[in-house]
């Protein structure tokens, strides 16, 4: 707890440095990542984050130390070459893009690992901690790193905001953008450069390979929550910031812990939460609305059963009779009967359960929809009367008043269904 307070009180200038650095790079990665995700180019981000490794190693070999300027230059060069390779090969050959991406990714990364191993064998003292570039170590960020990476991240953020509407249009509809005279090719080139730069900023703090996760996962998680692009961007940025700072904190508390994997753990956790609990699109909410629908079906059936019984015998049913209609579902049926009594759709006297006026109207509506749909199927789809029941059984719960009106109009208010049962309406007695 003490460590937590110390870390987040920002008394230590080194901590301020680390948090500032990781925040900037998280924001830029999440923003670029959101556009990349919507452009369905998530795999390209993955390829780039692998392809910067050989550049980093070559910069090392050349400079002989961890000079951030050389590293950025090296990483940007091989990263950019890889994107160029991907687009060139997939447009000029018959190979599909996913094949090309997989090939480019593994070739560049293979070369990177080769160079890294070679470097480590030379035993140069200045190269210790070289493997930080694989998994990242935010705590090792020094002032010079912050200047370089922070500047690049800010640059990426600003350019993205400046060309916000242009990038939005190109991703949604590139042909339209071109037709109104937007320089689509140049803008795509700019965007690809920003993508490479966003990956480059994460080399030190997150690590080359894992940067792909910080690029795409915040956007994927944010997509569950909203249908608005600017909200999605804000959410993605928030998720990335949270996981970036959390990763840095863990590296601070346990110095041997690499930052990258922890950032990935936290952002993945946020993605899981989104996947399960997001409003409307999340698993739980979908499961809940399905449950609710099933409950509605069951209650509809209770009302309908009482109505059909009344139609034949002009009286209510005993609770036992009613429950017997739903074999194996006695307890839920009892529960829903009580629910319907509370909703004032049913009333229970000593022996009988009867429909109240409002329950009667509702039951009539369900039976009416069922029979109307049967008429519709037999009239427009030419189905025989013995083929229409099952489908109508499903449609009776689904049809809206709007569709009901359309049905009535197109069938010209029929009096009976294909089985010669009367179609009940509100105004008849």
């Amino acid at each position, binding site marked *: 707890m003490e460590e937590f307070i110390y870390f987040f009180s920002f008394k230590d200038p080194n901590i301020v440095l680390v948090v500032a650095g990781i925040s900037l790079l998280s924001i830029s990665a999440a923003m670029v990542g959101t556009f990349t995700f919507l452009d369905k180019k998530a795999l390209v981000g993955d390829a780039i984050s692998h392809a910067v490794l050989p550049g980093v190693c070559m910069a090392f070999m050349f400079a002989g130390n961890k000079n951030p300027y050389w590293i950025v230059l090296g990483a940007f060069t091989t990263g950019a070459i890889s994107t160029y390779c991907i687009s060139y090969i997939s447009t000029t050959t018959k190979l599909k893009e996913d094949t090309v991406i997989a090939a480019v990714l593994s070739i560049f990364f293979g070369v990177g690992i080769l160079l890294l191993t070679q470097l480590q064998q030379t035993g140069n003292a200045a190269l210790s901690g070289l493997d930080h570039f694989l998994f990242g170590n935010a705590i090792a960020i020094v002032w010079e790193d912050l200047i370089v990476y922070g500047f690049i991240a800010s640059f990426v953020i600003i350019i993205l905001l400046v*060309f916000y509407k*242009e990038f939005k*249009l190109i991703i*949604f509809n590139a*042909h*339209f953008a071109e*037709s*109104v005279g937007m320089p689509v090719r140049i803008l795509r080139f700019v965007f690809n450069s920003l993508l490479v730069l966003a990956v480059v900023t994460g080399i030190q703090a997150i690590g080359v390979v894992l940067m792909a996760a910080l690029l795409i996962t915040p956007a994927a998680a944010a997509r569950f929550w909203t*249908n608005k*692009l600017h909200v999605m961007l804000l959410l993605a940025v928030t998720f990335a910031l949270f996981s970036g700072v959390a990763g840095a904190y863990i590296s601070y508390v346990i110095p041997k812990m690499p930052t990258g994997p922890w950032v990935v753990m936290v952002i993945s956790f946020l993605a899981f939460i989104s996947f399960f609990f997001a409003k409307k699109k999340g698993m739980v909410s979908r499961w809940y609305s399905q449950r609710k629908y099933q409950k509605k079906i069951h209650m509809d059936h209770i009302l309908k059963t009482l109505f059909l019984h009344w139609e034949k015998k002009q009286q209510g049913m005993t609770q036992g009779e009613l429950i017997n209609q739903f074999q194996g579902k006695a307890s839920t049926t009892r529960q829903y009967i009580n629910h319907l009594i509370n909703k004032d759709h049913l009333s229970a006297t000593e022996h009988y359960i009867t429909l109240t006026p409002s329950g009667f109207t509702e039951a009539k509506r369900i039976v009416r929809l069922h029979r109307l749909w049967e008429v519709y199927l037999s009239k427009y789809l030419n189905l025989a009367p013995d083929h229409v029941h099952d489908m109508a059984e499903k449609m009776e719960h689904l049809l809206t008043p709007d569709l009901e009106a359309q049905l009535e109009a197109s069938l010209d208010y029929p009096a009976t269904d294909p089985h010669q049962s009367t179609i009940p309406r509100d105004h008849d007695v």
Partner: protein
Amino acid sequence: MIVKVTKPVLEIHDLTVSYGKNPILWNIDFSLPHGVLAGIIGPNGAGKSSLIKAIMGLLDVNSGYVRIFDSEMNAVRKKISYVPQRESVDWDFPASALDIVMMGTYHKLGLFKRPGKKEKELAIKCLEKVNMSNFQDRQISELSGGQQQRVFIARALAQEADIYFMDEPFAGVDISTENTIVELLKKMTKDGKTVIVVHHDIHSASRYFNWIIMLNLHLVASGPTDKVLTEELLQKTFGGKLALLSDVGDLIKQKGFDPLKN
């Protein structure tokens, strides 16, 4: 039969286009007068969509040129609107109907400027014209096919152009939407706009258009509907491709490069 026009708004001169290595348009040469509602008709794979894409500069042309208002395309782009096929975009994109229509105002804003109140009002007005004002805040993936198409047309209206190129605006659209769109297009041409539509149904073509362009890899006819919509020309357009053109196309495909490209 190709009817020449004296003061054309659109002039296409000897245009040849390949898609990949596949030649799809051979020596297209015609012109259009001002204020027509023109339909481009032809069988599947005749190159109808490619023709308007080539006019818009979205495809590389092998040879020939296009002039609009007696100028280069790039000089007059602000006066021209293009409606792509509905299926060509991903409607899962996080945007509302209004967002999409506002895109029609982007090119006039230039860099740095965001669409503001004026652009929003224009977009709302354009949605009204296609009977979509009730749907302005609806997420686009939740719209029906016909509604999505109308959003695209509203976006074109927001461009306030003089010439409109529309790629299959009636594809996958119900009959009442089709009628709404046709009425709108007729009104637009009455107001002095020129509208060119890629259309797949020959039966309705005579009712919708007052100018017809018939296409089947090559140009079969271009002229006023009553003059060109004849049994003979329809037979020429829809009665199979010219065998030699297809054979040459296959030959070029086998070459591994396109000898027609400059």
